[in-house]
């Protein structure tokens, strides 16, 4: 800093002052141009690399899935399907009721498994357990229940939709 103070002392030649001002203007203009260049190149590259994510987000915006012939699913079994981009389950319980839940564990994202003989949904990764009727987290590390979907059983298909 001391060198700046020396330069700014009164008695400094006027053209030196002018030189300093144009130098500063040049540096500012150069930095601005450099930033503009970087932005002009970074934007297309970012959009290019982000393309699959944008495609996925338009796919996951789906509100309803029609599962053809799923009404024939035997009691006590599960049908795995894709809701948008992530896996989901259609469960036909032994008591005849239906449920559809997201199959993505709320802990760290593993795909969970329906176990009819234990009457539970289990995640093999870290031992999380969910209720197969409501999706509620019962034991283990999961912090939240599984997302539940609406189920309408029709004549020739099962309609699953977001709540």
């Amino acid at each position, binding site marked *: 800093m001391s060198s700046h103070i020396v330069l700014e002392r009164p008695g400094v030649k006027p053209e030196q002052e002018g030189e300093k001002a144009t130098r500063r203007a040049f540096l500012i203009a150069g930095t601005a141009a450099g930033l503009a260049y970087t932005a002009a190149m970074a934007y*297309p*590259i970012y*959009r*290019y*690399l*982000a*393309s699959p994510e*944008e495609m996925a987000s338009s796919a996951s915006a789906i509100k309803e899935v029609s599962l053809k012939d799923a009404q024939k699913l035997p009691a006590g079994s599960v049908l795995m399907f894709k809701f948008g981009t992530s896996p989901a389950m259609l469960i036909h319980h032994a008591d005849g009721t239906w449920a559809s839940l997201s199959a993505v564990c709320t802990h760290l994202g593993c795909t969970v498994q329906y176990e009819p003989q234990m009457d539970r949904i289990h995640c093999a990764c870290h031992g999380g357990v969910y209720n197969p009727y409501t999706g509620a987290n019962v034991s283990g590390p999961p912090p939240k229940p599984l997302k539940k979907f609406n189920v309408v059983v029709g004549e020739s298909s099962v309609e699953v939709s977001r709540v």
Partner: protein
Amino acid sequence: MIAKNTSFYDWAYDWVDERLGVSDLAAFARKKTVPVHAQSFWYYWGGISLFLFMVQCFTGVLLLVYYRPGADSFESVRQITYSMHFGWLIRSAHSWSANLMMFSILVHMFSVYFMKAYRKPRELGWLSGMALLGIASVFGFSGYLLPMDELSYFATKVGLEIPVAIPLVGPAIANILRGGPDVTEFTVQRFFALHVVVLPALFLPLLGFHLWLVQKHGNAMPPSEEAKPAIERKTMPFMPNFLRKDIAMWLISLNVLALLASVFPWQLGKQYDALAPAPVGIHPEWYFMSPFEMLKLLGTVLPGAVGEIAGILLFTVGIALWVMIPFYDKDRESGRRGRNAHYFGLVAVILLLGTTVIGYWSVK
């Protein structure tokens, strides 16, 4: 501890320098000066080639994110060009930059040739440069196939017929390069391995060697400058003065590339079809036009296999002479040999330009 009278910057510099020897590197970097004279303009072209190569690495890695070799290659390039945001621009920049790089390498080579910069002690710079040009041509040839559209299919088919003319081993070489008797997804797969792994692995160390030599020996003066007394010659330090000019040239190159790539986006043809006839007016890329036309012209004089073998022989001899020029025209005392080398260069330029023009003329 920060001693008295030393700033943190000095302390940090010393810390790094003691461990990595940065000041030796800086001294090596400062050593080089660039001659300033009427022909100094030609000194930029090696740097421009280097810049365009860096663009190739960068855009190439971006294309690698979505490109799938093998049976899926056309579909993946179609996806890059039409589905991914700005994919067309990145592909276009890669193709345009490849062409501009070939052009600037050729300008660089001919300027080195006519300024006699291959003479002692720069023979290895010339040889490594020729090897780099050779690898760059294989880069171009292999990259051309990767989209697997009609043009790339036929270009590769025709290009791989050339080694077939080599007696005895020719067909075996062609089959190994092609991965079978026909251009198929096996060909794309091995060209891909060549293009993104083998060639960069060869190119990069060779490029490092080439640049190290330039730094070590500095830019050569053309004979007209060498003839002047030492006090009349002007130079400028490479670091940072000429480097600054180099970077300005890179910016200009970047702008030219951006304009070409966005205003004239690189096209994608129809997917290749092994049963479809070759499209009318098909021709090789401009940097392969001259050898193709020479082979064609020779084929009319000497029809059949004789002409092909003669052509390949002629090329091999011509290229060998070109590569070995530093050992013929050795130094400034070369005299007559120096003049002969100059005429040989002129003949080469006229032959290349002439056959290229004839090639495009006959395509039309």
